[in-house]
Every structure is written in C-alpha cells, then in structure tokens.
C-alpha cells in the first residue's frame, strides 16, 4: 500500500525550483534511503514531505490512513539546543501533542505508551535523566522515541547518525532496522552509505542534475550509485 506519493512534483523555495518533475512513492513497510550531495534537495524534500513548505507544483499525496501531521520526524541534531533543561520523559511525551486533547497534563494511556516506547529503545533507566547529560547516541534514541510517540507507522529520520561514534551509530542502525522489521516504514536522509547498502530497499538520490528513484539493487548499478560506492571506498570493480 502506498503511504506517500508524489507525481511529477517540483519542489523548492520562494518560487526557485530545487528538484523538478520528481516522481516517487513510499509503500508501507519500505526502508527508503534519501542520499545525495549537499544542496541537491534532500532538506527541501524533507520539508516538503513534512508540509513545512508547499511544493511549487503538483502535490504530495498521503494515503487516507496516514494523517499528514503524524509523521514520526527525527530532525537534524543541530536544530536542537544542547543546554535545554528537559528530562527524557518530558521529551518523549511531547511527541504525542499532535493528538493531545486534554486541558491539563497527559493521560494515563499517553504515559503508559511513552514508557513502553522508552523501554523498547533501551532507555528505561534514563527516563528521568536530563537530556543535556546524555551521550550523543542516547540523545538520538530519545528523539527517536519522541518520533515513535507521534506515530508508529512512518519515521522520517534526517541524518540521524551525525556526530555519533561508530558504536552508537551501529546501535542506532540496528534499532532502526528492528523497527522497520516490526512494520514501521522508514525514510532516512543519510550521508552514510552503509544503511543504503545494507538495510534500504529503495533509494532516492538527489544530484544537481536530476534524481534517481528506484530499488537499491538497481541503484548500485547506475552511475550515481557507483560513484557513491567509489567515494565511500567501496569500489571493488
């Protein structure tokens, strides 16, 4: 089933197109990696899918079963203040505010759900810890938990491993893989070739001259795919 679809859309800022005639679709259960050089349209694409900027032409169509405002989004890390006083629990709970209707405080169910997500991501012992005192990997897992709180269907992760050490990176990838195996659709913007190579089923590659959208196996036979492999030191040809 298609969750999100764009048919011949053009995206960009203030009337300036960044990517033109883009056609893509994300099916339920997919693992899509969004790759490409800086400034080629990855962030523009993310913002368009999130509805923060409108497409210049065409429309991003959501499946009726998916509300456009219930995408589990993990923003780029640089966008969050590092010294913000907040506990892990406070951050995770804030993920469900999009469906929150109560006047004061969170409901029992919301708290239970937050606790179960926190333990699913292995943060049990840290739920009342302060965010600013966590390691980079723990911080990302907290923000991932918040994204899951917003939805359990579709995650959109924007460069989730930036600044993490290799062990924390591997851990986060394995958590994301597990979530995807549990049926959560994953869209991930990444500079790192490994998830694209190992985990993804679909690739959306942006470059200044155009884009590629298709299966992973196909992608690594195309020119941009081979170039990406070569740059990452995986050139075995």
């Amino acid at each position: 089933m298609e969750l999100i679809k764009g048919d011949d859309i053009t995206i960009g800022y203030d009337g300036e197109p960044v990517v033109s005639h883009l056609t893509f679709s994300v099916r339920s259960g997919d693992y899509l990696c969004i790759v490409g050089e800086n400034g080629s349209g990855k962030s523009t694409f993310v913002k368009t899918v999130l509805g923060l900027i409108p497409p210049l032409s065409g429309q991003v169509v959501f499946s009726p079963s998916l509300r456009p405002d219930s995408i589990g989004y993990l923003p780029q890390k640089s966008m969050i203040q590092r010294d913000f006083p907040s506990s892990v629990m406070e951050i995770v709970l804030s993920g469900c505010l999009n469906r929150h209707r109560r006047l004061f405080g969170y409901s029992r169910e919301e708290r239970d759900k937050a606790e179960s997500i926190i333990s699913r991501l292995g943060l049990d012992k840290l739920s009342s810890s302060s965010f600013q005192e966590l390691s980079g990997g723990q911080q990302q897992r907290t923000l991932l938990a918040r994204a899951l709180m917003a939805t359990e269907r579709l995650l959109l992760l924007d460069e989730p491993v930036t600044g993490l050490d290799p062990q924390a990176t591997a851990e986060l990838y394995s958590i994301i893989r597990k979530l995807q195996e549990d049926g959560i659709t994953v869209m991930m913007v990444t500079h790192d070739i490994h998830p694209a190579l190992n985990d993804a089923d679909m690739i959306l590659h942006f470059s200044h001259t155009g884009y590629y959208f298709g299966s992973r196996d196909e992608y690594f036979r195309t020119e941009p795919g081979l170039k990406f492999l070569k740059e990452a030191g995986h050139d075995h040809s």
Partner: protein
Amino acid sequence: MIIAEILSYPFLARALMVGFLISVSSSLLGVSLVLRRYSMIGDGLSHVGFGALGIASLLSLSPMAVTLPVVVVASFLLLRLSERRSGGDSAIALLSSSALALGVAAVSIGGVNTDLNAFLFGSILSVSKSDAWISFGVSAVTIFSYLVFYHQIYASTFDPVFARATGMKCERYTNLLAVLTSLVIVVGMRMLGSMLISSLLIFPALSAMKVAKTYLRVSVIAVAESVSAFLIGFILSYALSLPTGASIVIVHMCFYLLMMAAGWWMRKARTSV
C-alpha cells in the same frame, strides 16, 4: 512582626499581593523567554512601556489604558525583529532607546507633577486600587493560560521544527507568550520600575537552570525563587527604606550567585563520585 506591620497598611498589602502574583507569572514566562533566546525582548518591552507611560502622564490619560495596547503591539514588532537574521538585535536596541528618550522628554515637559524616578525605578505607592484589580486579573489570566498550554509551550520551545512538522501551530504559542509577557511587564512596571522589570523575567529562569536539569523542575524552582526574592526584597525595602524594585533585584542577584555556586558544587560532587 514586620509582616503584620506591612499588612496593616492597605496600600502595602495591595502592593504585596500584586507583586506576589507578578512574581509567579513573570518567572513562568521567563523560563520560555530565556530558552527561546528572547531575553532582550523583555528588556525592549519595558523601555517601550516607559515611553508609553511618560506620554500617558503628559496627556493625563489612564496609564494602563495607554501602555497596555502600546506594549502588546510592540511585542509583536520586537518578535518579528528578533527573527530577522541580521540587524535584529540592533533594531531592538534602537527601538528601546528611542522609546526611552520619548518617555523622558514627555515626563520633563509634564513637569512637576510627575516623578521620573518612580517611573524608572518603581514605587510601592503607585499601586492604586484599580491597578491592583487589573494586576490580579492579568496575573490570573497569565498563570491559567500558561498552565493550560504548558506542554505546547514547552514543545514549541524545545524543538519548533518537530512541533510544526507534527501539525502544531507554533506561531500561536509564540504570540501567546508575547501577549502574556507584555501584560506582565505593563502590570509590574509601575511597582518595580521599567528599568528593573525585565530582571524579574530573566533572573528566576537563569537561577533555576543552574541547579535543575528538567523543564518541570526549572519551572517550579524559578517560581519559588521569584516569590522568595520578591518577599525578601519587599520586606528589606520596607525595613531599610530602599526603592522596592532595586532591593528585589539585589535579592535576585544574591540568589543567582548562590545557585551558581550550588550548581558548581553539585557538578563537582557528581564527577568526584
């Protein structure tokens, strides 16, 4: 004993109640303002408030009726300015000093009937009965809306991009903060003085952040700090005949230094374990 003495004067009891409510609301708002890097807006607004107050007294208009709308409008203007990528801070500084200049000019044209000192540094005597009622209403509205929208204000402060992406109307909460801040500044300004009111927004949050690391604790400690500093400062000002605003700010400063030391000591204790 000294408290009983203060309470026996109706105008002091009134000032005490107004100050208490303002301390609670300003500390709550301050936490979000400081975390959003909007501290300068509070400062700018108090200068604009002074300007409006000066002009109101020159034209013999009701001070609240003039300052409230002017400061609310200015808060939206200052918000837009602070979001500008370049030149926003200098624009705020220009607006502040221009408003201050207009106020000073207006007060001096007004002549003998107005006390510039009271406008700048506050006066307990200026809290009239109607002021007290307005202050009561404004503080009640501020505290109530802050509590109702506590989680939304938190979320849109912590990560506005995520909040917007999940369908939250962040601008609404920013505007709400701007209006509430203006209200508190206008109401608090007459007692604490326009030069000192912004410290009531900033000190509690900064002090609380030295010792607390979760949002709820920062909010609770900020309120506690703000209320205690107000009460101590108020009593000191009565006992030593100091200007109220100044003595409250001095107590805030002492609390800040104490909490800074406490925070340093807590960090040291944790790392040495």
